[in-house]
Each structure stands twice: as structure tokens, then as C-alpha cells.
């Protein structure tokens, strides 16, 4: 029996603005995301997608507006909000000198460990079986990306915030990660992501925001 997340979770943003080097990237941006929904951010390079993701993570302060998690402002929640989210950014966020297993162990220490998958299972899911005890620096870029993505399933967070997760993945890797996202949404998880790939997820649960428009 697969555990599902609390169905009352929600991520809400209102009136967000981001100004960078006195250029307005976006303003008056808002959305609501409920459980089981995916939010796709689209837009040209430099349209502020990464900045928006970082605002949603609470790494960056918005120049106006606010983000709420279940009705509470995320800046005020702090670690209580971070516990609910996993972020995979431009940078993989893994240590080159550590093995994939050690990297995932640290990720589990910082967040909430997944009760369903242990570390070898998470690595196996991403086709890294047999690589768990070599230094990550010896792996290819695509494999390193897989380690970063394995963090998502090795920990248990309802909200995933992903910045171009498909970068340097091969077709097989893309397929694996799409099915992982599918499972996450079915469990009642939420995803906010940017990508230039066409994603095989469709339907009502996929929302889109175009920042260029």
C-alpha cells in the first residue's frame, strides 16, 4: 500500500514580483497549487524561471508579494516549510568527493527520510546499481544528475521544486524520471518545475504559467 500525502496541502503565491538589476522580470504573478498537481513554468531564457523557483523555495526574497504553504507565509515557517520540500536546482547539490550513497545519506539527514525506499533502492530506481560506492566525481554528468534526482525519492517531501531536471539525462533516464513524477503526483505530491523538454504528463492536473507572456 503506497502512502499518500495529506490531501489538504497547498502552495499559494500572490502578487509576486522579481526585479533583477533594475529590470522587472515578472510582477503580479500568482497561482494556487493543490495536491496531485504539477506546475510547469515556461518562458525564454532570462525570463525569471529560476528566480521564481528560488523564491518559491524561500531562498530568494520576492520584491513584492508572498508565498504561502498551507496558508502560512513560507518565510515565517522556515525549517518547517523546508521539511516539506525537495529542491533540485541548476547545481546538482552533491559532493563530488563522496559516493552516491554518502550523498543520499546526508540528504536524508537534512530532510525527512523516506519510509518506503532506502538508499540502495533509491539508487537502483535511477539505474545506479553498482555505482553506490564510487566517488561521484568519477560518474558521468547524466549519472550525477541521477544521484541528485534520487535525493527526491530517498527523502519524503510532498513538494518538489525542480529546475530543468532533465538536463544531461539520456532517454532512459527521462523515462524513469517521468514515471517517478507520475507516482509522486498520484500519491498526492506536488511539483513545480521548469523544462525545455516535452513532458509526457498531461491532463487537468498540469498547470502552466508562461513568464514571457
Amino acid at each position, binding site marked *: 500500500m503506497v502512502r499518500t500525502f495529506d490531501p489538504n496541502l497547498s502552495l499559494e503565491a500572490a502578487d509576486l514580483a522579481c526585479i533583477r538589476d533594475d529590470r522587472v522580470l515578472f510582477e503580479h504573478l500568482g497561482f494556487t497549487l493543490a495536491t496531485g498537481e504539477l506546475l510547469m513554468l515556461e518562458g525564454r531564457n532570462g525570463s525569471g524561471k529560476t528566480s521564481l523557483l528560488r523564491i518559491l523555495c524561500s*531562498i530568494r526574497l520576492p520584491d513584492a508579494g508572498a508565498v504561502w504553504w498551507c496558508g502560512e507565509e513560507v518565510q515565517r515557517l522556515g*525549517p518547517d516549510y523546508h521539511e516539506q520540500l525537495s529542491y533540485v536546482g541548476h*547545481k*546538482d547539490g552533491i559532493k563530488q*568527493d*563522496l559516493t552516491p550513497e554518502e550523498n543520499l545519506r546526508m540528504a536524508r539527514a537534512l530532510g525527512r*527520510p523516506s519510509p518506503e525506499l532506502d538508499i540502495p533502492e533509491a539508487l537502483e530506481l535511477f539505474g545506479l546499481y553498482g555505482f553506490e560506492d564510487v566517488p561521484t566525481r568519477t560518474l558521468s554528468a547524466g549519472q550525477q544528475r541521477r544521484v541528485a534526482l534520487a535525493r527526491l525519492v530517498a527523502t519524503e517531501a510532498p513538494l518538489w521544486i525542480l529546475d530543468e531536471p532533465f538536463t544531461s539525462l539520456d532517454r532512459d533516464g527521462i523515462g524513469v524520471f517521468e514515471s517517478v513524477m507520475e507516482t509522486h503526483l498520484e500519491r498526492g505530491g506536488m511539483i513545480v518545475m521548469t523544462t525545455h523538454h516535452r513532458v509526457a504528463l498531461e491532463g487537468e492536473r498540469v498547470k502552466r504559467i508562461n513568464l514571457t507572456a
Partner: protein
Amino acid sequence: MSALSTPRAMALLLRRDLLLAYRRRAELINPLLFFVLIATLFPLGVGADSRLLQTAGPGIVWVAALLAALLSLDSVFRSDFEDGTLEQLMLSAHPVSLLVLAKVFAHWLVTGVPLILVSPLIGVLLSIPSRAMPVLVASLALGTPVLSLIGAVGVALTVGLRRAGIILSLLVLPLYVPVLIFASSAVDAASSGLPVGPQLYILAAMLVAAVSLAPVAAAASLRVSLS
């Protein structure tokens, strides 16, 4: 499954940083060499008169320790910033200030403790009398953690900058002045056989203050640097 307790996460982070330092152990020796090198250069510059060295010795050891600490500071957050693990730390379920404390402690263990261990050797080179050696070691044991903690705030403020080195020293060195004054005066007093209690107590008080305040300031600084 709920999140680990914060002390457990801190312990794991400490372990991770020590492991990383161990895997790059060739780099560990550099600040230490720097420390010894400065202490060797001073007598060559000012002359090897043992009376002169005795009066200047405590100050030289401490200035050398200060510079060695400064040199090694950049590594507290730099590599974590570059590979994105710092973001992951900021987004953890634990208070960032405590994770910072664990990181600084790890950094002190691999850069500060070796300085303390070789300091008697430097003391001999600078003709510090042997009765002052315990005080020299004690002053370093109390003082170098303060240097690491204050330094961490400076590094946290400059970690996003491309050329951080010179600015870092401008930010951090003035704040090191009290440690320098009390620590070298303790060693000085000990070599002339005077009581050193007050200086060491003040250093201990600075350590307590730095442990409680610096991680909070460093966490706030990291939040600014990453945004």
C-alpha cells in the same frame, strides 16, 4: 518517518565534513605550513636576538595564527557554495545556524587543532620559555575557535563574490583585534611569570559569546549571499 533530530543531523554533517577533509588531506597541511613559515620569517626579519624574540614571540605566534586562520577560512563554505550543497543545507529541516555551527566546528578541527598541536614547536623557535607553553596552547585552544566563528560570518558574507579574498581580510581582521590582544598578552604574562587568569577568562567569555552569536549571524549572511 519524521525528520532526524537536529543534534543527529549536526553530527552527520560534522562527519561528512571530516570525511571530505580526509579525502582531500593533501590540502590540510597548507595552513599549517603557512603558520610555521611566518614564524620562521620573523626572526629572519627582526634578528635572532633571543631577548628580542622573547618579547615579540607571543605576538608573532598569534599574528601567524591569525593569518593562517584567515588563509584557511575560505574553505568553510566555498566548495559547498560552488556545488550547490549549501542550498541544500539552507533548505534543510533544521535551523541553519546549528548546521553552520557543526560546519565551523569541523573546520576548526581540521585547521585550528593542528595549529595548536604545532604551536609548542613554534614557541621553541621563538624562544618562548617553556613555562609559558601551557598558556600558549591554552590561549590557542580558546582563541582559534573564536577566529573560525568570526571568520565564518565574513566568509558567509563574501561567498558569492568572485574575488572574495582581499575583502574577506578587510572584514575579518579588525574583528580579530580583541582575541589578538588578550591571547598574546596571556602568553606574554606567562613568560614573565605573571598570572594569566584574567586574560584566559576573557578569552573564554569571547568564545562563549562567539559560539552563541556568530552562527546566527553567519546563517543570516548565508541567506543574503544565496538570494
